[in-house]
């Protein structure tokens, strides 16, 4: 299971990359999340210009097993969405850390964000539970 060191993680299995001194962010789902969901066949892309609140639903995606929500790790405004995922949702399976879902600006609150090491420990705990 891949957990890149340069990203931060949520307990609901999203990754977030903060940049421009924390004013902007990209968000995606983790390797653990895509592995649990199985083959992803659809993702609803949110609209550019929408505001999102940390911890609330950002969007949802669908695999052959289930539909699941993706929660926003941060509050902010959506300034870009990864249109490529509309036609190729399988990118979330094959390269989840390249397949960003949204880009956010005007970042406000965040949920509790974990380092790569802390997230790895959390995933182990989840698997053993």
């Amino acid at each position, binding site marked *: 299971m891949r957990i890149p060191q340069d990203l931060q993680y949520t307990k609901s299995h999203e990754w977030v990359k903060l940049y421009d001194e924390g004013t902007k962010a990209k968000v995606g789902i983790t390797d653990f999340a895509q592995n*649990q969901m199985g*083959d992803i*066949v*659809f993702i609803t892309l949110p609209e550019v210009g929408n505001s999102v609140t940390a911890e609330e639903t950002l969007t949802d995606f*669908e695999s*052959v*097993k*289930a*539909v699941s929500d993706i929660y926003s790790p941060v509050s902010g405004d959506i300034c870009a969405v990864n249109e490529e995922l509309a036609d190729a*949702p*399988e990118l979330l399976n094959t390269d989840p850390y390249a397949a960003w879902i949204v880009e956010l600006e005007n970042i406000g609150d965040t949920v509790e964000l974990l380092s790569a090491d802390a997230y790895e420990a959390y995933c182990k705990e989840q698997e053993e539970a």
Partner: protein
Amino acid sequence: MSMLIFERSSAGRRLSILPEKPVEIEQYIPSECLRRQDLDLPQLSENDISRHYTELAKRSHGVNDGFYPLGSCTMKYNPKLNEAMAVLPGFCDIHPLQPLASIQGCLQVMAEAQKYLAEITGMDAVTLQPGAGAHGEFTGLLLIKAYLHSQGQLARNKIIVPDSAHGTNPASATMAGFSVINVPSDEEGYVDLDLLQAAVGDDTAALMLTNPNTLGRFDKNILQITKIVHDAGGLCYYDGANLNAVVGLVRPGDMGFDVVHLNLHKTFSTPHGGGGPGSGPVGCKSFLAPFLPGRLAMEEEDGTYGWLLPEQSIGDVKAFYGNFLVAVKALSYILTLGADGLAAAASQSVLNANYLMKQLSASYDMACDGLCMHEFVMSLEKLKQQTGVSAMDVAKALLDYQMHPPTMYFPLIVHEALMVEPTETESKETLDQAAQAYLEIYRRACSDPESLHKAPQTTPVGRVDEVGAARNPRLKFGD
């Protein structure tokens, strides 16, 4: 592959020869509304059509073909007597707008079905209008909303749903304009009372709950659960999907619920899906009755039957009176079994599930310990880790044993879940055969996992590419 009906078509072949038009009706229709091309319909003889559908029927699997333990769906045998009742001309050859005096028998059936379903659920009034379970949920939530608004309680806009709920619960709540709060289950799969207490408040509209829950457990705290919600000013909605485990034994109304929907196509032995249609009657306590949809059949003082129009009705949720013939079949079932029979059926469904669970637990891990109700959930997580054989593989392999797989990957709180509901209408012999098949598949998973990845081998269609179908759907014939 067998041919599509369009591929069997031969130009000019007909089922029947229509007479010459007595008048040129085209002259009465505006020219821009007239069709200029013939409809592209298949052209076949009656014999061709009959063979086509018989061939398709042979390739499918229904309750009449074999074991069908699809969890949470209650695929019980549908007695032929129900069908005999539903084809009586007095029920079939009628029109929804014909004079009441000429359909008194139909109204009586509806009134009696309403009365018995109210008695069975412990409710005061029942509408037969909703067309299926989720439609019933939506209707029940609209009742709750109409009631809360009539009380000026506009801030109550949240529906609490446990994480073990059917996926339709949060979907129906959202459709009805509520927002959803998810409450995690405790370690045994029951509603966590502390988390529920923390979740309720001035914004609580209602709790939606299935009992027995989707893990097949009867929530022993049910009276406390409904009290917590009522004390906070919210209402309690009972999802009747799992009523078969307790019908005739306990009543949702006595558990503290205010609204309930039933699935006549589950508990009351009417056919499912395309062969149905479904029917999702909604029962409620008297304070919600003024808001019921449509019209209710009622007996007048002079012994005749007429319509009762609820005063503050939310309006129709379906045309006319719902799927009336399904209500005929359900009433036939209720009257055939009687109060004792319904309770005996529920008890037998629980016994059958426990009998099968006990045999399977020799190899398979169960999601929870102890006795189950009418269904049980297995977790194949460990098997998958050890052998690579998934719940999907086991489900597909069962097709080679001429039985329908159980429900897969539900409830979501159990990983690699298989949910088995044998129902009361299966014999001990069938359950023993099923147990042998499940246990043999488990042994094959350990000795020859590759053979299970390739299953099914004996069905007309082998392993289908579900991912390919979802990612690159081809929805049009002939492309």
